[in-house]
């Protein structure tokens, strides 16, 4: 289990104990965190699982693949340098304490 904090657009936050090996997207969905729609269920098609990773963490994640990069160009909310698709980030102990912000819209 790894502790992850999701911050909503209204600044409220939810901290969850996510199962290692799950994606961030699945962690959000299984713990009732709203705002990550994940229309394609994690198959890297939809870009509706967009999150902003806290700057302190951005460099610690696996790099963005070409596919993810192309999808991020189509996010509904503005793409920022710390934008990621939460279905492409795997929960692991090295991410303990990770903070991600959820954008105000996904489609």
């Amino acid at each position: 289990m790894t502790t992850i904090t999701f911050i909503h657009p209204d600044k409220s936050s939810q901290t969850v104990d996510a199962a290692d090996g799950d994606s961030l997207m699945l962690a959000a969905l299984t713990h009732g965190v709203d705002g990550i729609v994940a229309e394609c269920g994690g198959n890297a098609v939809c870009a509706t699982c967009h999150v902003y990773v806290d700057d302190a963490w951005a460099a610690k994640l696996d790099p963005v693949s070409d596919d993810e990069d192309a999808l991020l160009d189509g996010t509904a909310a503005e793409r920022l340098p710390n934008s990621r698709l939460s279905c492409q980030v795997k929960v692991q102990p090295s991410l303990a304490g990770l903070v991600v912000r959820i954008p105000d819209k996904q489609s």
Partner: protein
Amino acid sequence: MNPTGLSGAAVAPAIPHLAIDPFSYAFFDDPYPAHQEMREAGPVVYLDQWNVYGVARYAEVYAVFNDPLTFCSSRGVGLSDFAKEKPWRPPSLILEADPPAHTRTRAVLSKVLSPAVMKRLRDGFMASAEAKVDELLARGSFDAIPDLAEAYPLSVFPDALGLKPEGRDHLIPYASLVFNAFGPPNELRQQAIERSAPHQAYVTEQCQRDNLAPGGFGACIHAFSDSGEITPAEAPLLVRSLLSAGLDTTVYGIGAAVYCLARFPDQWARLRADPSLARNAFEEAVRFESPVQTFFRTTTRDVELGGIVIPEGEKVLMFLGAANRDPRRWEQPDAYDVARKVSGHVGFGSGIHMCVGQLVARLEGEAVLTALARKVGSITMSGAPKRRYNNTLRGLESLPVTFTPA
């Protein structure tokens, strides 16, 4: 008992044998009792009518979708095994391909139909839906299948693809043929193939580069042959994939959504109160009705699934509609709920073959349902709906309705 007539060891003894024919008119009229019978019989069943394995529970459907090396697509995603039978048309370079060939063609269609491309199409698709709904409100009473579920996609998709205006009336019959052809050699499949020649000729011709308007999906696919991602010979066949899978599916999807809203007034009221639910209401209709009901895979080795050993070279039929209503996965699976957290449904498939056109489908669905929610006050059925029969697609032939303005 061994229905294949092969050695007794070919079929594990524990597997439930069922007499259900999932390609019969009686099944199409009401598939739900049979779906439940299959789900309850076990994680894997054997359908004696067509000598195929079947999976109807969510977990096993998901597992088969997500193990494409064991459950392959290159031997056909219909009943016909391309290793034994000549395909009725040259196989699809994406749907009926396995990695690594699939990886290459899939990358091209993913770029052609990406979220960034949808952003550019969005305003036009929304405006066309508003115009269509205004026109239907002026008429009051009409048939929601031809006049909305077919008319709307026909007003946006062929243009987005870049097709010529002439001959578009071949599109729906061609797609209906493709989806009937995934089924067994029953009347639906045989008749569709017998009548296929003119539709095939039209489609083959329209897939050529010269016939596709600049800026459309078709021209974009051909452009990838200039940069070498695909060969010039492959491009027309990839355009064909969009002609096969991109129009009729959304006709059935939009038809399903309108049928849901006409049947469940409480859900229609929720959508009207909050039109931002439109996209989810469409997605939930895709789960609830599962316009694409089934796809096959073929085993590439002996494999254990749900405690049953399936030998190499067997056809496995996935019931998407049954998985999407599996009570092991879904709360109140038989309720249409416009606000349901619907992520994870398999109406668009799952894994490497998961619908590459799903963003187009959702954009169309969202556009139509948003326009309905904003402009229409009530939707009432003004006659009995009539079912349309297809070996793969589930939907209606006719849905007489009356709209009143908001």
